[in-house]
């Protein structure tokens, strides 16, 4: 069978190889988030160790797969200990596949403990997909831009689809539950009344602006899949930067940060370009490097030769 050119193009895009350095960076970010999560982002989960089992309401998945025990003190604390212990070697690339699986399974159980008492929080889908894909990816070094993998490319594509779906289906849910009038409702007013900050309380006096922000939100959520198909890298990173700015704004306004979602979203970025060792080695010269880059950008074509510029910088140490 000869695939159609369009199909060939689509699979080419879908399995576009990605450098392994990005895997190392994402492992570090995922592990770092787990260490922040339990005491800062969702500190209430560990509180469930006190709650009697009668108030546990198993979710669909726990009813279908009867492997999740009813949480009690030992299970809640034990899950957290395993999760934290396994995330350290994963972060620092020691047997990252084995510990990656342990982290993925422990974090999933941690989410079951969190969400099975009558309230489900959203916005963690991309992060969960990321945790389950990382252990399928090979061991990797920071800054490795030479070794490429189709599997990794697909895996991060899947995480990106998960991230984009979170936006797209969030708009869908607003229309399903709030109706089309959601965009003109008082939802943002209500949110700021409940959780407003010094950065957002002034907005209560401008309900028109809040309504406009609701239109903007639904608009960008429905359009978010575009980011998957943008070929121009600068535009793509620009859209991702816009997503991050959106979350920063929401955090300043109502102190909701969707942090795990933001961690998952990092796989849009060329993190394989980061090499911490090189960064540390170059740190003392960094201001000079940046200045030279900016100069080079302004003066096209570059008017200083690299040899001359290097002389200005202080030698390291």
């Amino acid at each position, binding site marked *: 069978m000869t695939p159609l050119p369009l199909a060939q193009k689509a699979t080419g895009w879908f399995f576009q190889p990605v450098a392994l350095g990005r895997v190392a960076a994402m492992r570090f970010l995922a592990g770092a988030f787990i260490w922040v999560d339990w005491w800062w982002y969702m500190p209430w989960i560990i509180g469930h160790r006190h709650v009697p089992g009668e108030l546990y309401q198993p979710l669909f998945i726990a009813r279908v797969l009867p492997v999740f025990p009813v949480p009690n003190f030992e299970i809640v604390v034990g899950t957290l200990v395993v999760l934290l212990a396994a995330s350290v070697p994963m972060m620092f690339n020691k047997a990252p596949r084995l510990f990656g699986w342990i982290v993925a399974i422990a974090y999933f159980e941690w989410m079951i403990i969190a969400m099975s008492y009558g309230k489900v929080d959203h916005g963690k889908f991309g992060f969960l997909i990321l945790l389950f894909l990382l252990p399928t990816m090979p061991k990797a070094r920071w800054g490795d831009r030479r*070794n490429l993998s189709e599997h990794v490319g697909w895996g991060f594509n899947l995480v990106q689809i998960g991230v984009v779906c979170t936006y797209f*289906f*969030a708009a869908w849910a607003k229309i399903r539950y709030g109706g089309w009038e959601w965009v003109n409702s008082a939802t943002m007013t209500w949110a700021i009344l409940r959780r407003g900050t010094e950065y957002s309380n002034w907005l209560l006096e401008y309900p028109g602006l809040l309504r406009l922000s609701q239109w903007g939100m639904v608009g960008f959520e429905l359009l978010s899949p575009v980011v998957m198909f943008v070929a121009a890298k600068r535009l793509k990173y620009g859209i991702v930067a816009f997503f991050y700015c959106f979350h920063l704004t929401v955090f300043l306004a109502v102190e*909701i940060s969707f942090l795990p979602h933001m961690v998952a979203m990092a796989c849009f970025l060329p993190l394989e370009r980061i090499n911490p060792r090189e960064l540390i080695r170059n740190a003392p010269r960094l201001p000079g490097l940046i200045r030279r880059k900016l100069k080079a950008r302004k003066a096209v074509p570059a008017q200083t030769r690299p040899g001359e510029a290097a002389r200005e910088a202080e030698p390291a140490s």
Partner: protein
Amino acid sequence: MPKDVAEPPLTRRGKLARIAATLAMVLALMATSLWGADDFFPFAPFKMYSHAHDPDGWANSTSLILTDATGRSFPIGDNDTGFRRAELEGQLSRFREDPTLLALVAEAYEDAHPDSPEIVAAEVRIVSYELRDGERTGAETVEIAAAWTEGDAP
């Protein structure tokens, strides 16, 4: 430093399996967003702030008030028992049906505060505020959705 391991390109079967997995994920998200409920976590409709709030309606606030053996009554926050307010609201119909379930919340509080006096009573109080153009008019109603006192049959 680990040796560079050359990754073989994906086979045709490998690619098909991955495409199938991707389609399955998107379809599951789509289906649960259309018809699903929170029960389908980690799928489920992503309904953060998806309800439309009527600026001319009623806004309510639920609180849980415990009374200890010394007679002191106090509202509790999310961190006092580990059972959050949103979770209480999520299971409110159970508490309305069987107020003795509040004994479990009291138990959670005692478990989290072993040195505090025993809890002898608990109630779920819902205060509703009337809104006009998104502002409180001052009118409010108070409802006791469930109440329990030590000694009620569990």
